[in-house]
């Protein structure tokens, strides 16, 4: 029929995808938004009364005796620790992941598959088990401390477990493959002749890295950073096990509200704050990428 335009057929064909998108993404998100504006129930769940108390509680706390209002320092500390640890994780995975990806991309094709396979092996193991393995490494009588004491660098075991350092080591280990794989993909596409062209045109080794290699593989760096930063920010298992109960990140704090805290609206509001931070970070990343090249060039 002349009237069944391609556009309309297109819409019809994409309905399954649209339905899935609604059920899988928008629906749950809508529930979270609604819950964030309700009152907490006595034991759990919500009471269907509109309230902005949850949002107030995200940033402020009321003294139970005299009702004075003050900043919720503990909450802000948790936000700050989450952002800081996630940024550090991203940075560490990049510093380790870039040479690793470079190494793999410069192997002969037959060896490359093996190296990539080795990189993905940790994915095959349960996250909990991997995290407990890291615990085994960093605990007082663990591998790391035993080794350092054996070499005589330290006399007493270092308290690493249940500190931010342990959380950082754990997250860097867990998310490293997510950095390496997109970096590998970008470096694999990189034309190595460009390095020679750079040297040929009087660039030093650092100049070649900064002016030729990094700008060209930037999409891979951005992809890897997003893939590491976003799950780091919402990490739950790793900070819980390696950070003990004290060094919470946003993920643990949200879980607390839905569990012991019995404050679902606060949990929902915190989830939305987390979403907001991720969104801001993504927008910042996108702006960095779309503004490629021209930035450091001249003329």
């Amino acid at each position: 029929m002349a009237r069944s335009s391609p556009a309309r057929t297109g819409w019809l064909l994409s309905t399954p995808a649209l339905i899935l998108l609604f059920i899988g993404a928008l629906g749950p998100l809508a529930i979270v938004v609604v819950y964030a504006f309700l009152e907490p129930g006595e034991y759990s769940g919500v009471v269907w009364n509109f309230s902005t108390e949850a949002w107030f509680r995200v940033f402020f706390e009321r003294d139970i005796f005299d009702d004075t209002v003050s900043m919720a320092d503990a909450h802000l500390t948790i936000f700050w620790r989450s952002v800081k640890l996630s940024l550090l994780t991203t940075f560490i995975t990049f510093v380790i992941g870039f040479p690793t990806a470079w190494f793999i991309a410069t192997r002969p094709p037959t060896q490359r598959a093996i190296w990539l396979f080795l990189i993905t092996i940790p994915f095959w193991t349960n996250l909990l088990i991997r995290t407990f393995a890291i615990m085994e490494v960093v605990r007082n009588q663990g591998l790391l401390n035993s080794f350092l004491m054996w070499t005589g660098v330290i006399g007493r075991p270092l308290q690493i477990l249940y500190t931010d350092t342990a959380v950082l080591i754990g997250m860097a280990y867990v998310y490293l493959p997510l950095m390496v794989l997109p970096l590998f993909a970008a470096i694999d596409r990189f034309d190595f002749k460009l390095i020679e062209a750079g040297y040929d045109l009087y660039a030093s080794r650092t100049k070649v890295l900064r002016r030729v290699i990094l700008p060209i593989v930037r999409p891979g760096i951005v992809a890897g950073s997003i893939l590491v930063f976003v799950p780091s920010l919402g990490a739950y298992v790793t900070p819980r096990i390696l950070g003990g109960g004290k060094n919470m990140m946003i993920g643990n704090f949200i879980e607390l509200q839905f569990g012991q805290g019995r404050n679902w609206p606060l949990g929902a509001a915190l989830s939305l704050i987390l979403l907001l931070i991720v969104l801001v970070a993504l927008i910042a990343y996108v702006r960095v990428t779309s503004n490629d090249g021209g930035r450091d060039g001249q003329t």
Partner: protein
Amino acid sequence: MTENAAVEVQKASRVYGAGSSAVRALDEVSLTIRRGEFFTLLGPSGCGKTTLLRLIAGFETPTTGQILIDGKDVSQTPPNQRRVNTVFQSYALFPHLTVSQNIGFGLEMLGRPRAQIKDAVARMLALVKMEKMADRRPQMLSGGQQQRVALARALAPEPEVLLLDEPLSALDLKLRKEMQLELKRLQTETGITFVFVTHDQEEALTMSDRIGVMSAGNLLQVGAPREIYNRPVNRFVADFIGETNFLTATIRNGIPRLSNGEAVQAKGPARLDGKTVTLAVRPEQVRIDPEGPIHATIAQTVYFGTDTHCHLRLADGTELVARLQSPPSGDIGLKAGEKVRIGFVPGAVQMLEG
């Protein structure tokens, strides 16, 4: 030794790998490239041309021997400290930079002031006629345009020597002819020493001041195009450059004779008396001549327009091609099976060792 030498290669060898799998890509090659000349390295694929170029550029260090640029030993100097620039076969333009930024890259790395870079870039854009494309990215250019940008980028820092590794091989025939003229013009205008690599003998003959013919890691002959074409030192050079007929002859009393005793119009040194030699003669130097000393049978004639190729068989079975100018009628009046006598243009026959 020479004051006007831009590049001196002294007994340079380059071995890749080790042990039984080692490849001797370059075998004690010595070569002097004069300042301001258009020098071409010519040879079949895999003979070591790229290796020699990479030694001069500094991407590789010689296993033994030295490379001198402007009289200074640079064998261990990294590429970014050599006043040498390369035009890569794949162009290797920076995809994240515009045409202007690509061209200015070298000068920027040399730390030249901004205004000077801007002037130089404008000059280079005009030189390769790419002014309109200044702000484009390389991916948006055609092959020929990318080629021009690659040239401009390599010329902008005004190097002592410009190295070009088969820069035209990716272009189609028409564009290739155009760029050949363009390259020659650029070389004359800038006065920069060009070292040009090709496996195309015609390209080498038309563009070069001098040619170095290479084979299997060795430099066989260096000379002006006419010298290489008319006086090849061995069978390989004669065969690789242009078309050549080869005859086997034995020298008797200073005169080379074919196996049936027929004399060839050429002089052989007396010291070779009794020795068997290979004679080379170009098809255009073969004449059908009723007075000629050699008997032959016409095997076939092939009409090529201006020329007619006449395939001949000698008494001993040797095949020979004569390139004859087609008469106005177009018919040279020779038929297959016809018996003729042939001779060679005086001085045309080369006696070869190999």
